[in-house]
C-alpha cells in the first residue's frame, strides 16, 4: 500500500464514522423539524429516500412545513423555556466561576509535589457517575434532608427550608456537577503562568490585588473562557439536573425536549426544539472552539 493510500485510509476511518454518526443525524433532525406530524409519527419511514429522483425530492420539499416552528412561537411555554435555560445556565456559570477560580488558584499555588494529587482529586468526581452525584443531592436538599437537619441542629433556622424542587437546587446541582470542567482549564492557565511577572509588578509598586487584576486575571482569560463555555453549553440543554432537583416550575429546554419526545411523542416538534437549541448554542460553541484552537497553537509553539 502506498503512502498516499495509507494516509487516505487513516483519515477516512474516523472521518466517515463522525460524518455518519454525528453530522448526518443533525441533518435528519433538521429535516424532520419541517415535517408534518402525521407523516413523521412512528412507525415512520424517511420522507426522503436516497434513491428518489430530483423531481420527487422537489415534490417532497414542497411538503415541508414551518408548522412546527410556528407552533413553537405560538405557545409561550417554549420561549420561556429557552429564556429560563439561558438564565439558569448563565447564573450557574457565574457561580461555578466564583467557586472554581479560587480553587484553581489555590491549587496552582500549592507546593509542586501536591499539585498532581490535587488535580487527581478534581478529576475523580468526574469519573464517578453524573447521575449518582445529582442523586446524592436529593438526600441532602430534601425538606427532611441532611442540610435542613444540620441547619436546625445549628439553630440557624427553626423551620426546614424548601430547597429541593426550586431553581436554587438546580443551580447547586449544575455548579456541583460541572465544577471540574471549570477548574481544570483554569488550573491549566494559572499553573503555567510565569510567577516572576507578578513579582515584577509588585516591585514596580503594584499592590497584590492590583497585580492580580492587571496580570493574573488577563493571563488566565483563555482558561476562564474555556471553563465558562464547558459549563454553560451543556448546562443550557441539561435534562437530568432540572428533572431530579428542579420542581415542576423549573423550565429548561432540555427537559421540554425530553417531554415532547417521550411523553407527547411529537417528534417533529421535538426536532424543531432541538434545531433552535442548536442555533442558540452555535455562537458559544464557535467561541469555545476558537479559544481551544488558540490554546493548542500556544501549546505546540
Amino acid at each position, binding site marked *: 500500500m502506498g503512502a498516499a493510500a495509507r494516509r487516505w485510509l487513516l483519515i477516512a476511518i474516523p472521518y466517515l464514522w463522525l460524518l455518519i454518526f454525528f453530522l448526518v443525524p443533525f441533518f435528519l433532525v433538521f429535516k424532520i423539524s419541517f415535517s408534518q406530524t402525521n407523516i413523521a409519527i412512528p412507525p415512520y419511514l424517511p420522507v426522503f429516500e436516497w434513491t428518489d429522483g430530483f423531481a420527487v425530492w422537489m415534490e417532497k420539499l414542497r411538503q415541508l412545513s414551518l408548522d412546527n416552528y410556528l407552533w413553537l412561537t405560538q405557545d409561550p411555554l417554549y420561549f420561556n423555556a429557552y429564556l429560563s435555560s439561558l438564565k439558569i445556565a448563565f447564573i450557574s456559570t457565574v457561580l461555578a466561576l466564583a467557586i472554581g477560580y479560587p480553587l484553581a488558584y489555590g491549587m496552582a*499555588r500549592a507546593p509542586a509535589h501536591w499539585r498532581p494529587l490535587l488535580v487527581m482529586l478534581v478529576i475523580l468526581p468526574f469519573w464517578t457517575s453524573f447521575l449518582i*452525584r445529582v442523586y446524592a443531592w436529593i438526600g441532602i436538599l430534601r425538606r427532611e434532608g441532611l442540610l435542613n437537619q444540620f441547619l436546625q441542629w445549628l439553630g440557624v433556622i427553626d423551620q426546614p427550608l424548601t430547597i429541593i424542587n426550586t431553581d436554587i437546587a438546580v443551580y447547586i446541582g449544575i455548579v456541583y456537577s460541572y465544577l471540574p470542567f471549570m477548574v481544570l482549564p483554569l488550573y491549566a492557565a494559572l499553573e503555567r503562568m510565569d510567577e516572576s511577572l507578578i513579582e515584577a509588578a509588585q516591585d514596580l509598586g503594584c499592590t497584590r490585588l492590583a497585580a492580580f487584576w492587571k496580570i493574573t486575571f488577563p493571563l488566565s482569560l483563555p482558561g476562564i473562557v474555556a471553563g465558562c463555555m464547558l459549563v454553560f453549553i451543556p448546562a443550557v*440543554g441539561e435534562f437530568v439536573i432540572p428533572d431530579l432537583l428542579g420542581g415542576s416550575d423549573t423550565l429548561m429546554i432540555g427537559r421540554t425536549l425530553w417531554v415532547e419526545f417521550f411523553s407527547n411523542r411529537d417528534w417533529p416538534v421535538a426536532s424543531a426544539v432541538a434545531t433552535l437549541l442548536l442555533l442558540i448554542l452555535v455562537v458559544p460553541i464557535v467561541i469555545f472552539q476558537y479559544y481551544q484552537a488558540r490554546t493548542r497553537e500556544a501549546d505546540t509553539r
Partner: protein
Amino acid sequence: MNRHWSGFNIVSVVVGFAFLYIPIILLIIYSFNASRLVTVWAGFSTQWYGEMLRNQALLDAAWVTLRVALVSATAATLLGTLAAVVLVRITRFRGRLLFSGMVFAPLVMPEVITGLSLLLLFIAMNLDRTIFTVMLAHTTFSMCFVAVVVQSRLVTFDRSLEEAAQDLGCTPLKAFLTVTLPVIAPAVIAGWMLAFTLSLDDLVIASFTSGSGATTLPMRIYSQVRLGVTPEINAVCTVLIALVTTAVIIASVINKRSMVQRERAEQLARAG
C-alpha cells in the same frame, strides 16, 4: 520559584474539595443505614447490599451496561486514537476544519440533541433499537473524548524516534506500534477508561437509542430514583463509586510505575 501558598489559598482549596466530596461521602455512609428512611440514621447494616444482589432487574441492567461499556470503550479507543493521529500528524487535507469541528463539538453538545439525532438516524437506517444501537451511540460520543486525551499526549511526542525506526527498516505501521504506541499508552489507557466510565454513566443518550430489551443501569437507577430515594440505590451507587475509584487508582499506579521504569531504562541507555 517563590510560590506563596497563603491561608486564603488553603481555605479555598479545602472548601472547594469539601463541596466536591461531602455529597459522595454522605451517600456512601447512608448506604450502610439500617433504616428504610434515607435521612434517619438507625445503625450500621449491610442489608441494602443484599437487597441489591437479589434485585434481578438491577443485575440484568448492570450486565447490559457492562457489555455496552466494554464494546463501546474499545471501539471508541481505536477510532479516537486514529482521530488523534490524524489531528496531530496530518495537518493539511481537504475538510480538516470540518473534521476537527466534528471531533470537538460532541464534547459540549447537549446530550438530548445527540440522543435525539442518533435515534432519528437509526430509524432512517431501519436499525431496530437494541443493545447494538446503544453501543454505536456510545462509541460515537466517547471517541471524541479519547481523541482529545490522546491528542494532548501525541503533541509532545518526538516524531524523530518514529522516523529513526523507519530508517532502520520498520514499516510505518510497525514503527507506530512499537515506538509511538508504548509512549502514548498511558493516554490511550486513560482514554479507554474515560470512554468506559462515560458509557457506564450515560442516561440520556441510552434512553433515546435503546430498545425495550436493553435497559441500562443508569436508566434503571433513574426510574427508581423518580419513585423515591431508597437505600438500595445508595448501595448500587456506592458499589459503582468503589469500582471506578479502584480502577482509577490502579491505572495511576501502573502509569507511575511505567514512567519510573522508562526513566530507569533511559538512564541505563545513557550510561551504557
